[in-house]
């Protein structure tokens, strides 16, 4: 089972143009900031929104093809959908919610109830079968919603911010459960989120969507280590520079020089963690270090450290200890030198 989609949607000045594929059993996470068009992609695949142009094929079945004039209605697409607020039917018990899709597909009442009970059991919420949705916690409602979506054995499972409605305390547990359940699902899973941790934990592959376009895709390890846009760099917590490399030196667009850990040629990205940045009041001596002058723009608590935003020819983030903040009297407007060891920099072709 696999899914391949080309989707273009144009409306109210917003343009979405996305090509993506999801293999059988693969979990692809669509990551992007709010308003990037992530949910729109899901709506188009589910058949709730007609794309302006495009084609969607799942297991050789054409779900839509604007050129051929094909547009299967949602009920014929065999798509399971779980949304942020779960949308469990409020007047039905958990069991009836799960049985709904089976009943709609003509399964007899008793068979549907038996199968639904087994789905609830598989998701570890068998004892909640008779509860109404308003008597379920967020995590429980999410599992029931997942059971409801999986019970109709969809070819495609669409999850729209499935953890966003949970409080921070329960999220990690529900997230690891979700990962386990998705691991046992044989169809194609497409999960939308704006939470990088969720993406890194759940994804086999991450597709990053910004302003309606795919800007980067790859396995979590690649994204986390080699971001290609400022948004991706920010969500994985790295500083990202772009420049032209000649041998072991690179020059940024603005002209600032960067010493590289190894030779490279042509346009490159350079990424390094904020914790690798050292701030000092004057230019450091060591030549193995990159050193750039700048001005402190902002200070912010970041775990045990303080995250300092430095403006200048090389704008970057630096994580320093509170002690360093005190010793250097760091405050917005203060000129500082930022230095990074060349060996801390990851260099890869742009």
């Amino acid at each position: 089972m696999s899914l391949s989609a080309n989707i273009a949607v144009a409306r109210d000045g917003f343009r979405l143009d996305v090509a993506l594929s999801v293999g059988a059993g693969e979990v692809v996470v669509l990551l992007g900031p709010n308003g990037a068009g992530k949910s729109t992609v899901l709506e188009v695949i589910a058949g709730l929104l007609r794309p302006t142009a495009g084609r969607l094929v799942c297991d050789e079945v054409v779900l839509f093809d604007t050129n051929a004039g094909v547009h299967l209605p949602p009920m014929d697409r065999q798509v399971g959908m779980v949304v942020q607020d779960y949308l469990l039917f409020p007047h039905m018990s958990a069991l009836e919610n799960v049985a709904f899709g089976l009943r709609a597909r003509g399964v007899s009442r008793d068979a549907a109830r038996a199968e639904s009970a087994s789905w609830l059991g598989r998701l570890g919420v068998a004892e909640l079968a008779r509860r109404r949705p308003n008597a379920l916690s967020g995590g429980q409602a999410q599992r029931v919603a997942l059971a409801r979506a999986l019970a109709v054995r969809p070819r495609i499972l669409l999850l729209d911010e499935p953890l966003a409605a949970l409080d921070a305390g329960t999220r990690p547990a529900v997230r690891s459960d979700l990962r386990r359940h998705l691991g046992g699902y044989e169809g194609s899973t497409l999960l939308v989120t704006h939470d990088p941790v969720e993406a890194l934990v759940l994804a086999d592959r991450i597709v990053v969507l910004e302003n309606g376009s795919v800007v980067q895709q790859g396995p979590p390890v690649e994204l986390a280590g080699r971001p290609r846009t400022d948004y991706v760099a920010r969500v994985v917590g790295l500083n990202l520079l772009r420049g032209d490399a000649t041998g072991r030196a690179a020059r940024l667009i603005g002209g600032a020089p960067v010493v590289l850990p190894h030779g490279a040629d042509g346009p490159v990205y350079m990424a390094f963690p904020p914790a690798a940045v050292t701030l000092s009041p004057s230019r450091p001596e060591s030549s193995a270090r990159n050193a750039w002058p700048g001005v402190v723009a902002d200070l912010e608590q970041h775990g045990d450290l303080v995250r300092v935003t430095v403006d200048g020819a090389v704008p970057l983030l630096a994580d320093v200890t509170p002690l360093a903040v005190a010793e250097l009297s760091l405050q917005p407007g203060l000129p500082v030198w930022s230095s990074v060891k060349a060996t801390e920099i990851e260099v890869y072709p742009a």
Partner: protein
Amino acid sequence: MRASWSPDRQVNRRLAGRADARVPVGLVIPSVVGLGLLLLPLAGLVARVPWSRLGQILSSPAVLSALRLSLMTAAITTAVCVICGVPLAWLLARTELPGRSLLRGLVTVPLVLPPVIGGVALLVTFGRRGLLGEWLYETFGISLPFTTTAVVMAQSFVAMPFLVVAVEGALRTADRRFEDVAATLGASGWTTFRRVTLPAVAPGVLAGAVLSWARALGEFGATITFAGTFPGTTRTMPPAAYAAINSGDVQTAIVLSLLMIVVSVTVLVALRDRWVRSG
């Protein structure tokens, strides 16, 4: 959000209680005048009830037949309103029907139309010489005016807009994404309507049905114009009260009025709990 429903409500109630203490005098005086206008006539009516003859008047054939006819026609009218009005409201709320906003306006016209005008319109359309009535009479020998069917038609004409407006409002505020979820689960449009949409708007349907029923029970103008006031077939309680007062039988008119108040209040109170809680 869901779990904190009832505590929220209690807080609201408490706040409302505190606000009462600060109502300005400028609001109190008109309120009292308004209340007087609303309640004094009812009090006057109750004060003049001929309690000693109550049993005798109540059991008179004229009153009993008007009561029976009113309850029967109002019940049938309510059924007609629900059966036709709910699908109509769905069409208005959920489809991209051409001329939909015009249609929505037209549906609510009977709300503002004097009922007598509705009766005249029904008469010139369904009367024996009417636009459709003539054809009905000549083809099938069916004559609608001055029959019990005409009573139901007159009542439906004035009552159905209440139901359509109530249900359409409920449909507009209902979260349509539930219907989307039902569709992705493989439900047809009809299954979705029956098992997801209808339960979601049930409070609106109930509210609309109660309003329609109350409006049908009190219907006078359209009924008397289109159906007349024949004892046993078209004389429901309001025309019966009117006929009684015209013939000088004030006591019967008062008893009929009291009866209508009791019937209406009983039904409203019986439904109130469910209505208020869900609406």
